[in-house]
């Protein structure tokens, strides 16, 4: 059968959609359904980016063939449903890696383009879209191939374009030469906020990221672990089997006391003097992928992730945001801070040069109100919220945060005049509506 009626959600599981999904496995079957709705992938975006309530959507996960590889230039052409982790697994042993990898290897190439994702090396190599040489998509019934040189406007509207300019069917990626499939990782503890920011500012490694204990306050505020990495080669430690999260966690699992204990233990994993270890690349990039369905750990109601970026000059605003999060006391363990560079490839790309902070909150009680407050603080600091993570932003705010929205919407309208690609997020944030 072509269409399956089902209920599906984003990674945060707080938002759900019921609608019809097609999952083509060949080019011919994809052509037959391409005009019916937006494309969705592994649904690793958190909120409603990949949802279309009451409508149709095209699940691209079986369109996952490798199409071409140029061994001299490192250019790899793949279908949109290929998972980034698969590319890393197959090509790392040959000395190539996607230049940019987000926090999960389950994300698809199509999704990585549509959200212009970034990774731990953003300050050096920028976003995923900056390493895309060409995108092929079905746009308003026709197959088109665009490049950043020849179709600059359409390319910039498609990268981070939330799937609104066409069904991305394949893309040519510029892989980067990598020394091997190992990552040399140095972790050290930082004792407070200033040390955390200092360590992230002065880090020289191509990959850097900080973890913050969001339950620590007072003198310990901002403490955590700064992780730096560099690719290398050697004996690859054997990777353990992935485990599935076996059940929906009960609500006490996300209680303050448990999180506090978990964070303290997590911090102590790293000796006071720091340590350097060799890890398989996938463990470094995708640490949480080893626990399949870890999102179930937040219980049935799911969770919201708040990820913002504020300009470098707004460190005080960043600190105020973090203090507000600590005071609220409901943040979950994976709280991540990183210094972003200026790189971005799309009109609606998230990164600006500055500090980004990502925090998970269980979907209950005061979370929504708190996140709205954090959105306000972000907006006033001249920052923005990452749409791939969002489920609660207000339409008024997105217009301030993303100044190119109106220009982008115009291109999206031209590419998809019938509005067939509109998703729940586009409706919620009125992204393609003129609000002026």
């Amino acid at each position, binding site marked *: *059968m072509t269409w399956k009626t089902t209920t599906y959600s984003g990674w945060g599981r707080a938002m759900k959609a019921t609608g019809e999904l097609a*999952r083509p*496995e060949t*080019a011919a079957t994809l052509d037959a359904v391409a005009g019916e709705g937006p494309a969705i992938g592994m649904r690793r975006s958190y909120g409603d980016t990949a949802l279309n309530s009451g409508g149709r959507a095209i699940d691209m996960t079986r369109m996952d063939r490798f199409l*071409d590889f140029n061994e001299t230039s490192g250019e790899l052409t793949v279908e949109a449903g290929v998972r980034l982790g698969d590319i890393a697994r197959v090509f790392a042993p040959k000395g190539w890696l996607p230049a940019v990898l987000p926090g999960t290897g389950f994300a698809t190439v199509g999704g990585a383009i549509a959200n212009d994702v970034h990774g731990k090396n953003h300050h050096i190599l920028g976003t995923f879209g900056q390493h895309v040489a060409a995108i092929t998509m079905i746009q308003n019934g026709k197959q088109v191939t665009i490049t950043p040189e020849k179709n600059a406007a359409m390319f910039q509207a498609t990268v981070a374009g939330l799937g609104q300019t066409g069904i991305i069917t394949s893309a040519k990626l510029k892989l980067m030469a990598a020394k091997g499939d190992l990552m040399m990782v140095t972790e050290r503890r930082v004792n407070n906020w200033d040390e955390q920011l200092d360590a992230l500012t002065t880090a020289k490694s191509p990959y850097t990221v900080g973890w913050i204990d969001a339950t620590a306050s007072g003198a310990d505020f901002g403490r955590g672990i700064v992780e730096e990495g560099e690719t290398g080669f050697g004996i690859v430690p054997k990777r353990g089997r992935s485990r599935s999260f076996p059940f929906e966690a009960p609500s006490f699992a996300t209680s303050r006391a448990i999180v506090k204990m978990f964070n303290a233990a997590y911090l102590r994993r790293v000796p006071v003097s720091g340590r350097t270890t060799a890890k398989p690349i996938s463990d470094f990039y995708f640490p949480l992928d080893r626990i399949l369905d870890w999102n179930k750990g937040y219980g049935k109601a799911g969770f919201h992730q708040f990820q913002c970026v504020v300009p470098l000059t707004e460190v005080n605003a960043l600190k105020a945001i973090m203090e507000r999060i600590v005071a609220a006391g409901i943040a979950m363990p994976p709280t991540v801070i990183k210094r972003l560079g200026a790189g971005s490839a799309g009109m609606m790309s998230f990164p600006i040069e500055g500090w980004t902070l990502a925090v998970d909150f269980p979907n209950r009680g005061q979370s929504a109100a708190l996140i709205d407050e954090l959105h306000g603080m972000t907006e006033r600091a001249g920052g923005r919220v990452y749409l791939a993570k969002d489920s609660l932003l207000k339409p008024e705010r997105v217009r301030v945060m993303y100044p190119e929205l109106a220009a982008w919407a115009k291109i999206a309208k031209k590419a998809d005049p019938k509005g067939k690609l509109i998703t729940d997020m586009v409706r919620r944030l009125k992204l393609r509506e003129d609000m002026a």
Partner: protein
Amino acid sequence: MSETWIILGATSSMARALARELAGRGADLLLCGRNQNELKALTTDAELRGSRLAKALHFDARDASTFAPIVARAAKVDGVVNVAVFCGSMPPQSEVEADPAKLQGVITDSYTGPAEILLMLAPLMEERGAGTIIGVGSVAGDRGRLSNYVYGSAKAGFHTFLAGLRNRMARKGVHVMTVKPGFVDTGMTWGVPGMFLVAQPEQVAEALLKGAKKKRNVLYVPFFWWGIMTIIKSVPEFIFKKLKI
């Protein structure tokens, strides 16, 4: 020496997953099926994933003239030849009941076509004194049921054929494994109501290669279908005929 696998019905979801797994091991692949464009894409994919050599060959279970070229190609293989059969077709039972002429196609796709080419390949495998045949049947072949007895009867025939072939080939060092998958998440089952305990094609592929390595004779995938089918087979006919499953 690298291993060679002939995959019949290579564009099916399960076959694709197996081809990928084998490509990762560096195997040579002969991908056989009807859709040439699709097969070409799959051979490129397999080579990029590590297959030393992947070739697309035309195969149509309903056209016996397509068999000989595949056998000729297999004869040229230097080393062990392995075969995995994934062909079959399952139109809704009601469609076949409305148009009984459709039965012939189901039987040819799911049983007689693949059985004929296996008979043609058997001598050259016997000659090599090694290799594996993986024949994919179905739990539907274990008992005739209201919902798909035409398809089920074809698969039952194929199971019996494979059992006999196993008997013949075992004495020459060739192993024949009968596979009975339960519900698998393929293009064929997408959106079909009443599916439960659905397995991913990748899981099936992994189970097939593990089973082949252990020289399993009959393999239910996932394994718990053995229990389910044991229960279904043990229901007495006078009760079974009143059931709707």
